């Protein structure tokens, strides 16, 4: 009887199966969902991803060329100006007897694939393990933090942007030094939420939000965004803080992969906000934040420090001579 019913109503049976499977996937735990997604991507969609990268390279050449020409001109002017400032910076540091900061490298990369979803939670870039890009590396643009590398193959890497629920960032209000965890909440517009901030803390609309460096996933001081709205949660215990990201995730074409010599290193001045000197940096004890608040829930273990910059990387550091800094340094000043 059941067989007859199924035979007569095949279309409804297919619908029930499809909806049942969809619901089953939706109610899975997050890590199980990730496992299923990983399996499907690696078994079925590998060739498609490669084709997607090729297509974007082919189609984007004209636009990229125009964009890069303009950018090159602007950067040349900025580089000349920065050369003088770098020398001045070195002289002043010497005068103040400040310690040299650790060098870091930035690997420029192009976006070759995008999320099929309208929210754009992931990207594919054209640099991989061969260029020193590994899982967990921070991804930046001159505007601020983009996200982190989720996984890397030899010549490509997949990026989780901040608009992905698996990409949480230890963040700090720059003005009041209040710590929290920045995470996108599914179902809203492309805005972020700063969580685990007590209702007693000093946070106002318009405050800048930067990475705190806690958890060693992202270096401290990278611009994340601006506080758009502050309210209290229904219990009145915690603040609900909405943050507008500094980066426009929809129009990303070139990004920078941060390769630290040590993750506690310094920050590129254009990307990272000015960090107060140690004597001035008195972090406000934040919220009754849980101990996990400093790392992403599913954050991978931070990779070991890179022994040396990858080939083609833009290496920087106060101690480095000016000649060692490429003119393609995307306009970032020496820390």
């Amino acid at each position, binding site marked *: 009887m059941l067989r007859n019913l199924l035979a007569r109503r095949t279309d409804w049976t297919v619908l029930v199966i*499809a909806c049942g499977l969809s619901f089953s996937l939706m109610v899975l735990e997050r890590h199980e969902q990730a496992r299923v997604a990983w399996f499907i991507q690696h078994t079925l969609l590998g060739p498609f991803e490669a084709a997607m990268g090729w297509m974007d390279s082919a189609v984007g050449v004209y636009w990229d060329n125009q964009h890069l020409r303009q950018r090159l001109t602007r950067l040349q002017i900025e580089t000349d100006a920065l050369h003088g400032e770098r020398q001045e910076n070195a002289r002043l540091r010497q005068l103040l007897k400040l310690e040299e900061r650790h060098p870091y490298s930035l690997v420029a990369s192009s976006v070759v694939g995008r999320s099929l979803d309208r929210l754009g939670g992931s990207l594919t870039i054209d640099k991989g393990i061969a260029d020193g890009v590994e899982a967990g590396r921070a991804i930046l643009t001159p505007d601020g933090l983009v996200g982190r590398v989720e996984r890397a193959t030899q010549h490509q890497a997949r990026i989780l942007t901040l608009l992905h629920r698996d990409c949480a960032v230890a963040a700090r209000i720059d003005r009041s030094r209040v710590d929290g965890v920045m995470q996108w909440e599914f179902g809203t517009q492309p805005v972020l939420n700063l969580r685990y901030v007590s209702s007693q803390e000093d946070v106002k609309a318009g405050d800048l939000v930067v990475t705190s460096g806690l958890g060693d996933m992202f270096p401290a001081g990278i611009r994340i965004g601006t506080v758009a709205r502050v309210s209290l949660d229904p219990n009145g215990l915690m603040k609900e803080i909405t943050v507008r990201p500094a980066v426009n995730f929809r129009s990303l074409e070139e990004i920078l992969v941060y390769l630290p010599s040590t993750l506690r290193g310094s920050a590129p001045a254009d990307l990272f906000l000015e960090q107060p000197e140690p004597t001035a940096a008195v972090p406000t004890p934040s919220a009754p934040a849980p101990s996990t608040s400093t790392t992403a829930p599913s954050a991978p273990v931070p990779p070991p420090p890179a022994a040396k910059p990858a080939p083609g990387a833009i290496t920087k550091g106060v101690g480095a001579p000016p000649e060692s800094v490429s003119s393609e340094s995307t306009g970032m000043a020496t820390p």
Partner: protein
Amino acid sequence: MRDGIVLAIVLILQATVVYRMEIAGIRPDLLVAFVVYLGWMRGPIAGTAGGFIVGLIQDLDAPGPLGLNALSKSLIGFLVAKAGFRVHRSNIGVRFAFFFVAMLMHDVVYFAVSTSGDLGKFIVQMFFVALPTALYTTAIVLLILTLVESVSKGLLLTDEA
């Protein structure tokens, strides 16, 4: 076979070119349009199964829960096939209505789940995201259909399925 090739082209276009067509944060969703086409031309089984597969592929890249796009697209594939059984697919007005309404229906399911039942958020998303996306996508799809049909001198969406 032809549907597979069309799907591959649509997926590549969606991942690489469509973001360049964004207007005020709104970009066309060619994947829903493909599911509508599949359901309309190939019937409820192909529409539902195709919608599920396309949605699942989209879910793999999406920041939201796995299965949400699969669910909404399976339903749309099925509903379009059932509703569009005896209509004139070659009529431009019918095409517009089907693609537009199907896009809206898809987003009703999508945002109903993604807003977790918050009516205020749901209405905002429908008004500011779903409606303009449906209009934009429908316009783009009708343009593509017209272009392809005039070049190939045949109908992609024929009255005889």
